[in-house]
């Protein structure tokens, strides 16, 4: 078990040593992080300029029906399996006329991104012995560990950030969170051994709620929580936890200030309404404000379409496309698109055959959507076979292991050795431009 977290005894011992050696400037650690946060955006010392690549992950929860998102309209078996649900070939936005694969028309905005060379679809992504439980399969995608699933305890992004964190100085760590998740729960994917993500559903919850009750309370709260001088009165006791909580409180205020100011300032371009668009707008505003955050995590739920699938899935796909398009328009306006890559995944695809309720049940492999000018535009890899002989008990057989997708993102985009994070080498999915 690790004895370190970003705020462990080891670090607070360092803090204590600083107190001993430079008693006159006691809260050095507080002041230095405060200065760093206040540094102007064009300060070359800031991380997050060119060279600091950012990854945005979109979790499509519920099991997105891959076959009706990325449609194999040239495959007869597709229409046999989906007499009522199949997407009319005439309306499909074709990406490959020869193979006969294209996009659900609801993904028109995503298609526009592809046409701009800013998006791609990795086909048939999955893993061996697929698990059809939402929770178990989601845990597998989060931990990148089909054997142990949630028992692994850390996620692929958390472990990657742990590895990156080792190279970042304490001052930089204090400048802001390396991972921001928007949602009700911290995703397991972002849990590291050392790095814990900053998670909030609304930006207002990333601050003290008592502020809203009375201005005098807000004022007194700030006196108490931004009390750098309090550290000066501390007894010099290495075993005391007090300096740690005082410093964490101070850092929390600074991070909150920065994130809330960023979100309040908003974006340069307009975003559509909707759950995902709102989340991506927040992400965009944080990128605009040059936060040092390397990984953002957002989610869009509702893909568990056991009945009445068409209307619901189309709305969700349309929201995905529109939101991503708006996000990359904003990134382009900011001149930041080149350092922001997006990856959208779902815990599984759905069964090839539709069910009796105009829906589909839990299946296996599915497409992973990627966006950003660094990705190979269009279709990536080969569509899985739909022929009876190519299926496994009526389910798709994956063409690309999801860990090959992660590996390429880690090695080629985030600059972290994938073998360390994933425990083995998985090659590349071919999603990044050569």
């Amino acid at each position, binding site marked *: *078990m*690790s*004895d370190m*977290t*970003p*705020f*462990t*005894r080891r670090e*607070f011992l360092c803090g204590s040593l600083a107190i001993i050696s430079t008693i006159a400037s006691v809260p050095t650690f507080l002041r230095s992080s405060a200065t760093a946060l206040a540094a102007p955006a064009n300060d070359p010392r800031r991380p997050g300029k060119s060279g600091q690549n950012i990854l945005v992950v979109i979790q499509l929860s519920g099991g997105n029906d891959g076959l009706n998102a990325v449609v194999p309209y040239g495959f007869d078996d597709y229409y046999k399996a989906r007499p009522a649900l199949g997407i009319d070939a005439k309306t499909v936005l074709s990406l490959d006329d020869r193979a006969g694969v294209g996009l659900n028309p609801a993904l028109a905005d995503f298609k526009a991104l592809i046409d701009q060379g800013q998006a791609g679809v990795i086909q048939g992504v999955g893993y061996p012995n697929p698990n*059809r*439980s939402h*929770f*178990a399969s989601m845990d597998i995608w989060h931990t990148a560990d089909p054997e142990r*699933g*949630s*028992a*692994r*305890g850390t996620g692929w992004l958390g472990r990657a950030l742990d590895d990156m964190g080792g190279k970042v100085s304490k001052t930089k760590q204090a400048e802001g*969170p390396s991972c921001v998740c928007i949602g*009700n*729960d911290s995703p397991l994917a972002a*849990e590291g051994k050392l790095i*814990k993500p*900053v998670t909030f559903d*609304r930006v207002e*919850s*990333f601050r*003290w*709620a*008592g502020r*809203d*009750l*009375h201005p*005098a*309370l807000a004022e*007194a*709260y700030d*006196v*108490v*929580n931004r009390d750098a*001088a309090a550290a000066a*009165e501390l007894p010099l006791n*290495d*075993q005391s*936890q*007090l300096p*740690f*909580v*005082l410093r*964490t409180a101070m850092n*929390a205020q600074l*991070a*909150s200030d920065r994130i809330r100011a960023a979100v309040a300032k908003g974006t340069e371009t307009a975003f559509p309404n909707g759950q995902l668009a709102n989340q991506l707008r927040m992400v965009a505003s944080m990128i605009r404000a040059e936060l040092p955050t390397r990984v953002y995590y957002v989610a869009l739920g509702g893909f568990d379409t056991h009945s009445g699938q068409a209307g619901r899935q189309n709305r969700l796909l349309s929201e995905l496309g529109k939101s991503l398009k708006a996000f990359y328009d904003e990134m382009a306006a900011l001149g930041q698109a080149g350092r922001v890559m997006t990856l959208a995944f779902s815990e599984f695809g759905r*069964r090839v*055959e539709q*069910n*009796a309720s105009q829906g589909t049940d*839990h299946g296996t492999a599915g497409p992973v959507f990627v966006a950003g000018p660094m990705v190979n535009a269009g279709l990536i890899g080969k569509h899985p076979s739909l022929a009876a002989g190519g299926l496994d*008990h*009526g389910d798709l057989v994956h063409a690309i292991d999801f860990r090959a997708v992660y590996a390429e993102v880690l090695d080629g985009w985030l600059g972290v050795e994938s073998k360390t994070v994933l425990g083995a080498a998985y090659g590349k999915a071919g999603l990044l431009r050569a």
Partner: protein
Amino acid sequence: MAINTSLASLTDRDFGYAQAQHLLARAGFGGTPQEIRKLQALGVEKAVASLVDFESIDAAALPAGEFAADILRPATTEEKAEYLRARRENDEAALAALQTERVKRENEDRRQMRQLEHWWLKRIIESPRPLEEKLTLLWHGHFASNHRTVRDSYHMFMQNALFRQHAAGNFANLATGIIHDPAMIKFLDNDSNRRRRPNENLARELMELFTLGEGHYSEDDIKQGARALTGYTFNDDAFVFDAKQHDGDEKTLFGQKGKYDGDGFVKLLLARPACAEFVAFKLYRHFVADVASSKLLAPPQGVVVKRLADMLRVSGYELKPVLKSFFASRHFYDDSVMGNMIKSPVQLAAGTIRALRTPVRNMDTLSNAMGLMGQRLFDPPTVAGWDGGPAWINSSTLFVRQNLCVYLLTGVQPGRKDKEKSAYDPKFLTAGLPAQSPPSVVDHLMVTLLGAQRLPRRREQMLTFINERGGMKDDSVLALLLLITAMPEYQLG
């Protein structure tokens, strides 16, 4: 100042209000000033006994834990036959129907899991036997398994009952019980530990995390131990010893030869010198200093852990005598110990409700907050339990912690306009105080909430706050409670 490492009992004269408050916080989840004064009046020995000998306290008023055992159950013979038929005949419709039924049951089980979580959280908040719940939580984090993996709420309930049954009993019963526990067997794959294909998971964690700690066994001990545990499985809700799958041959464990089974293996482990020390460290970590590894203890703390280990050896792993001596000891009330532990999320939530008697409010909101603070009950992240200590607090969880207190005190949730109706009246806290005297109110509330962690400057800051608003107002006590629970040092206890 040197840390007092003596395990000799504190004198009653030294057992003041602050000491009684510390005892109730650490051996329980804290309490009101009235409860603390009552405990103090008992004197140290009786105060400790009142917490440790909890069986004599009537807990009948607590909500009974009644949960359905059969939401998830093994398939019946007919169901199995139907599945095999559908599979054989490639009857996709029938397979889909079976899967739909399965998904329905799993959803129902998750609903029950949520109820189970609420039930335990409520028990922690309300139980008149707080130490019983605190120890149950200790064993839950020690022999950690989670519903995500076990995926059977009733098995989690049974495991919780095991921990509560032996909470302050004998550690040997816990260690033996856990290898017969369906949830743990499932969690650590011992249901697939078979004679010809041993699975080492349970054997490894039994030594590394449950009894000895890393470095006190060899890889070969794991292999041999796994053989001893073969055939320890379960059917439906009951432990089953599957003799056909058990490897009854001779094993060599720690240099000793014998035809050990799982129970024999556990007996050997309990007799290892490292075991008592490992358990002693766990107790110390839970009640005194939440550090991730015994290597992080200061040398005097290490001395105390060794003494506790000796006591465990003498008592034959009976926990009560050890807990009694320990909670009465001078070391337990040392300045370096009092008020210097980072509260777990459970401690923070239950402690705030118990000390201030706030409404419990919405259990779903509360358990969501537990999740955001990183300690959802029945959901420790891994078999190693929660990291604890400083890992509880970062800039994200700190706001959740502070906002949980705002929610308990006012019903207000961050960013939400609506507010829960049930109002909180803190009048009882200041009963008998000169209500118009800011210093006496501020002092009293700071003692109540912060115990030993009171910074002199905070008193001034709070008095300034009151004076700038023109003295005590109707809502001043509530305002002070909001501010004091938002102080960084409120995270310590």
